[in-house]
């Protein structure tokens, strides 16, 4: 089963996103911030990551930069899921190696569409 890491400091968002990806046939793992996400990736690299931007300890962008420098860190599809909806943020995310970008709010349809677009589904 493919693995999806859901990174968000909000418990509610993690729950909603995990439920959606589980229904899409993924094994959902959760992390509360960039530090936990990094440790989780060291432990086992997921196939896809849904990544919040603003989080304590290590934010999504910092995590993504670190991830892309890890061995096999280039493999996971990374999709930002954030309230940051400015084009400058999107540009930064893409430069750091994000594959897609979802501006909150999101729903199951949108996640499925982005999964299909990035070829993970």
């Amino acid at each position, binding site marked *: 089963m493919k693995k999806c890491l859901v990174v968000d400091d909000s418990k509610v968002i993690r729950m909603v996103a995990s439920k959606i990806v589980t229904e899409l046939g993924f094994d959902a793992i959760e992390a509360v911030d960039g530090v936990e996400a990094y440790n989780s990736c060291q432990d086992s690299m997921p196939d896809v990551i849904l990544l919040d931007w603003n989080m304590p300890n290590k934010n999504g962008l910092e995590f993504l930069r670190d991830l892309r420098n890890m061995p096999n860190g280039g493999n996971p599809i990374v999709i930002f899921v954030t309230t940051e909806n400015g*084009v400058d943020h*999107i*540009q930064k995310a*893409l430069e750091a190696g994000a594959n897609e970008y*979802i*501006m909150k709010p999101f729903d199951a349809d*949108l996640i499925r*569409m982005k999964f*299909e*677009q990035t070829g993970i589904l």
Partner: protein
Amino acid sequence: MKTETFKILSEFIKKRSGIVIVEEKIYLLESRLDKVCGDHNLANLDELALKIKTSPLSAIASDVIEAMTTNETYFYRDSTPFVDFEKKILPELIELKGTRKAINVLSAACSSGQEPYTLSMIFEENKTLLQGWRTDITAFDLSNDILDIAKEGVYTQFEVQRGLPVNLLVKYFDQNNKGWRVKDEVKKHVTFKQQNLLEPLNFIQKFDVVFLRNVLIYFDVETKTKILSEIRKKLVPEGYLFLGSSETIIGITDEFKAVEGMRGIYKAK
């Protein structure tokens, strides 16, 4: 709603737009036309029907048509047809039309513009291959209101997220306080026009490819046959027709044949 009211309204809608409302869908009339009644200070659909009967060319009448059309659309809708267009059909056209260096595409029933702008972005993405070519997209719809939105080309966050890959969003849209505006380099390929599919298609040029997606579903077989025959006249020999993913030519026309390996894509016979 009186039986007479249903009859007047459904016949009027069919006559003006081709859209068929069957009795089981009576709720659609109620849910969509309630607002039209309110806007024109009419108490209910019975009064509305009476107005339509006495003045079928009034503003109320066109509001009824606007309200009954479904405008749902998004960028790269269903994705595969657009991938097939870019990866299979466009290379073939470039090879075929090398001397004239012009490609004409029609986006019929284009709604708020996502379909023609998607095609336009595909042209832009291939502009090195298309250096020195004319790539024109003609787009039409029945509804003037929706065409105004298409021409403006400003979309909400919700609309740009559905279907559009984010790299194309940052490349071909400018963000302003109203939303995301399609850049001029994308707009320049597209010409919007008002046209009813039930009437003779008013274009001088012939098209290499016609997109007629997610609109035939609203019509009865007889209307579908007529429309496809009109479209056929506007296609070049062996021109391509793209239908929506739930639409088919089977039992409707033999003027086209299915293209093997490309779902929803047909070739003029």
